[in-house]
């Protein structure tokens, strides 16, 4: 009796030990510091969620491998002569639950982003006046006025198409369990604060895609841990390898770091609303004191390119020849001395990221050389954003990126004083620039647009709306067993075309 009992106990213990693991072996494991905080494309405009939305929800248009606008859910589209009416014809596509994707769904998705009060980022389709389902597969979008970047904006992460029927039926729950998706993948499991596991969507409209078994998007806040995991074979892809570890990773033949161009720009924001940076001479001196080449070298070990303009260098109409307020400490010192700056200490606000902290330290040291005294105040993200938005700072090194290669969203965010965000909370407000922003958006002629944006860059860089620091590439590391995976400037993984060697 006794031995039998023992055997039974042992057997049940053994079965406990070897509970079959879900077959995750073939998934591409992507480690990123950024979190998926919601599966509803309208709900967040934060990194992490942005990447996720792209994999779950198809947009009307997509950016192809060459970076050009290509058909997405919309097979064809027509723009009216005055640029105000866009008519799109949908292809025969289905949601992951097998229901067809109709013009109704498109109209619902776009208006939801535009009209919901707490929609995170309605800006890209703000110019949309009406959207109308002409028939099941035809959508007619009417703009308030001609708006050049609109087509590009239809590719932005939150313009993904969701199921009207499902969302109306289930409300927020539609984005928690059994999420209906229109993109290449659907949700296999979501463990908030840990990882999102996605599996191919069998109903995805692009035949032959995705070319892999899905992916695990794993959230790993500690940078050294991400690298350790990569090197020990626990990850296939790492987003944001610390610059200091780039050499170590690339020295290993099993990994590649292509340093894809990004639309990220690091800028030193200055608070124009209070002394001393309300004084243009002080701002110019501050800009000229910063040896951006040395900063880029010290912080990124030369991976990033020193910045010369207030907008990212990968955007259309970026002006590579702009050269104002270049590094000149002697001139900067002279300007400070004659500027009337009273010598009072200013505050460099910095959020807790190693990169920003180093920039702050360098900023502080370089400014000290021209007699601009500063102290650094580190703040966690919550405090950082409330202090930034309320203008409770003098300077802060930070960054932004642009969702599209069109500069419209970038200048509205970073340079425009009348577009709702006080020019990235610098409280820089130049009516001329504001006017140029609207002109640039409405102008359909390429050369004229180029001239408008060049002018805008010249004015803002000269007036130092903010100090451009450097343009970093994406420091992503890929296992050489992976093929075809990369990141677009708009923070989207080209995941659907990637394959993983066994």
């Amino acid at each position, binding site marked *: 009796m006794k031995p039998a009992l023992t055997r039974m106990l042992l057997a049940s213990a053994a079965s*406990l*030990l070897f509970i079959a693991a879900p077959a995750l072996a073939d998934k591409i494991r992507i480690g990123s510091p950024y979190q998926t905080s919601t599966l509803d494309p309208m709900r967040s405009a934060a990194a992490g969620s942005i990447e996720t939305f792209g994999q779950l929800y198809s947009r009307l248009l997509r950016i192809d491998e060459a970076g050009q606008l290509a058909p997405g859910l919309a097979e064809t589209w027509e723009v009216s002569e005055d640029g105000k009416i866009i008519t799109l014809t949908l292809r025969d596509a289905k949601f992951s639950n097998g229901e067809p994707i109709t013009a109704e769904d498109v109209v619902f998705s776009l208006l939801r982003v535009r009209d919901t009060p707490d929609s995170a980022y309605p800006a890209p389709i703000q110019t949309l006046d009406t959207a109308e389902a002409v028939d099941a597969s035809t959508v007619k979008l009417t703009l308030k006025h001609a708006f050049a970047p609109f087509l590009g904006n239809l590719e932005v992460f939150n313009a993904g198409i969701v199921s009207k029927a499902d969302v109306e039926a289930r409300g927020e729950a539609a984005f928690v369990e059994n999420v209906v998706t229109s993109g290449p993948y659907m949700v296999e499991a979501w463990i908030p604060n840990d990882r999102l596991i996605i599996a191919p969507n069998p109903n995805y409209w692009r035949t032959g895609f995705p070319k892999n078994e899905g992916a695990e998007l794993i959230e790993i806040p500690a940078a050294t*841990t*991400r690298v*350790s995991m990569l090197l*020990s074979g626990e990850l296939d892809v790492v987003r944001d390898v610390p610059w200091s570890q780039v050499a170590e990773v690339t020295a290993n033949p099993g990994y590649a770091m292509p340093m894809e161009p990004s639309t990220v720009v690091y800028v030193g924001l200055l608070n124009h609303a209070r002394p001393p940076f309300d004084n243009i001479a002080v701002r110019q001196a501050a800009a000229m004191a910063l040896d951006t080449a040395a900063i880029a070298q010290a912080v990124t070990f030369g991976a990033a390119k020193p910045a010369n303009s207030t907008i990212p260098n990968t955007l259309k109409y970026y002006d590579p020849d702009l050269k104002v307020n270049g590094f000149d400490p002697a001139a900067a010192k002279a300007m400070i001395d004659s500027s009337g700056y009273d010598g009072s200490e200013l505050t460099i606000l910095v959020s807790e990221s190693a990169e920003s902290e180093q920039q702050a330290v360098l900023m502080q040291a370089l400014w000290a050389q021209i007699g601009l005294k500063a102290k650094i105040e580190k703040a966690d993200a919550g405090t950082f954003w409330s202090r930034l938005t309320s203008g409770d700072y003098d300077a802060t090194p930070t960054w932004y990126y642009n969702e599209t290669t069109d500069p419209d969203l970038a200048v509205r965010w970073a340079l425009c004083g009348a577009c*709702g965000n006080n020019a990235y909370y610098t409280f820089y407000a130049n009516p001329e620039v504001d006017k140029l922003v609207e002109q640039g958006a409405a102008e359909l002629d390429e050369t004229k647009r180029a001239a408008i944006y060049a002018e805008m860059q010249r004015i803002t860089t000269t007036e130092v709306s903010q100090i451009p620091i450097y343009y970093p590439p994406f420091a992503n590391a890929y296992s050489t067993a992976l093929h075809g995976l990369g990141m677009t400037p708009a923070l989207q993984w080209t995941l659907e075309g990637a394959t993983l060697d066994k």
Partner: protein
Amino acid sequence: MHYLTFIGRRLLHIVPVLIGISLVSFLLVMLVPGDPVRLVLGPRATDDAVAAMREAWGLDRSLLSQYLTYVGNVVQGNLGDSLKYRLPVWDLIAQYLPRTAFLIGYVLAMTVPVTVLLAVTAARREGDWPDQVIRLLSVLGMTIPVFWLAVIFARLFGIQLGWFPVSGYGEGFLGHLHHLFLPAVSTSLWLAPVLTRNLRGALVQQMDADYVAACRAKGLPERLIFRRHILPNSVLPTLNLLGVMIAFLIGGSVVVEIVYAVPGLGALMIGAVLGRDYFVIQGLTLVYALVTVLVTLVIDLLTAAIDPRTVG
């Protein structure tokens, strides 16, 4: 009978503590600067969107009314929804509680035998070289920052030697053991010295106790005296410290959770604190407090079971 009254009294004792805790955890979060909404919606969110969400979540109401709603919900077993994930807080906690519990269990399973072995060895050879070596090692163990050790371990055992995974929770019991090995060792290396010092001290003190002399006078051999008399009497203070340490680990495991990418309650808490996810912070502090209170209760009951004097 006595024992039951004792338990009853201890349980009753918890009520005012819990009320205090709910109030403190609420105020802690509410009175402090930082805006959760901006973090949830992302930097590009418009001010209108931020205001709309604040209203939707009742964050614009008076503190008292928010507290009453909160307590009302908690009493019904509802910890509220996460601002960030829009999921019930309890679901989030339930997801991570087993991980942290497993990690702590693992740490204890690793630490306690080692502690007893080292402390007994040191105490029995008090002043001799094994004692000196153990004391030196335990002092060193206490002074090395856990995260530093963790980074080195990940490098050495994970990457160089490839013996253990440097991240994750693994699948199945053995998988958990395998994946959590490095986090557990890193924690143990700090915990074992603390406990060893305490137990050794108690043993050394008890070895001088009068009843030990009485046992010797009875002619009992040292080994027997040690096992039957000195050890049980010495274990009590260490048991108490162990309780404190378990409570500490529930939150203190956050460092290894982050270094080894095993998100548990600690990582959830850090995320919630930095993201100002009010209801998650409140829910977690309540759960933490509850667990702490329960651990203390268990330790008290164990103490009472060992020491007849506690029950009276």
